């Protein structure tokens, strides 16, 4: 038996293995981090793909980072914010501040996008 069909089958399997999770991830429409527990305000509206298209963001770095080196974000795998930022912490940036800074600082800098509470935490 030639090796060719076997390699093709394996290749197809590999494609499926990586392709399916990539497409099966649900579109992000809001930021409702379960780490906060009982939320005080409605979840922040955030259409991930529409936002990045509008803001012309190609990479992951402007938002997703793995720590900070010399005052700059270091690119990394898109991990959950709560993996590093704790809700209550004396060291580093607490989770809520991390979210607020992430969105607001960029919006203030670009002079575009929402900056006040209710512009993101919209009531249904």
């Amino acid at each position, binding site marked *: 038996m030639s090796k060719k069909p076997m390699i093709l089958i394996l290749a197809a399997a590999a494609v499926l293995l990586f392709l399916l999770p990539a497409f099966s991830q649900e579109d992000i429409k809001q930021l409702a981090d379960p780490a906060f527990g009982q939320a*005080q*305000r409605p979840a922040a509206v955030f259409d991930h793909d529409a936002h990045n298209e509008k803001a012309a963001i190609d990479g992951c770095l402007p938002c997703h980072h793995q720590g900070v080196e010399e005052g700059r974000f270091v690119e990394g795998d898109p991990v959950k914010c709560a993996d590093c930022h704790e809700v209550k912490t004396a060291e580093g940036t607490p989770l809520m501040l991390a979210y607020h800074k992430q969105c607001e600082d960029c919006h*203030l800098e670009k*002079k575009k*996008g929402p900056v*006040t*509470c*209710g512009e993101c935490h919209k*009531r249904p």
Partner: protein
Amino acid sequence: MVEIYNFVVGPLAWVGWGIFVVGIIYKLIYMYSLARAKDYSSLDYMSLPFSLRSIFVWSIPFYATNWKRNPAMTVATFLFHICLIAVPVFLLAHVVLWQKFFGITWATLPDQAADYMTLAVIAACVFFGVRRATDLRARYVTSYKDWLILILVASPFVTGFLAYHQIFNYKFMIILHIVSGLAWLALIPFTRLSHMFLGLFTRAYAGSEFGKVRHVKDW
């Protein structure tokens, strides 16, 4: 929107807070100098234990005779003053701003509780307004300034309530809320709202004179 927001939480906030802090310090020094110049002997009456005793006793609802005499007013004024201070200081959305701008945080109220307390402040303002209009003695000492102050005090709470519930135009309401809150702070030293600080000294003086000089209770 970003430009207007930047202006009201930036330069305008510094001006509002600056006038409030400097104004209050100025007012306290001014009132002290005035007492020294015009009524020097009154300063000798002052006593710290009797001052603190009077402030403490009058802080207990329905303890002083005057608190017992006007139950509705007593409930309204205690509820009003507690909520008036507690809501702006311990509101989550405000502490979020302190944390963002200055890196400091403290305990916060649940939003639901703050919401009811805001309504209590607004209801108390309505009560004070009705009282000013209907109570003969209150009406006699009421001028247009008292109405302006009542509106000034109520406005950050009304706009804050409307902004929180996103009733009417949210962006307009939140800017109006910030501006009215800063106007409120800046006008404290120059209006009757200065009783926020001076009231303690009025109480302290009464407590001292009644306790140290007349040897009687002042409640």
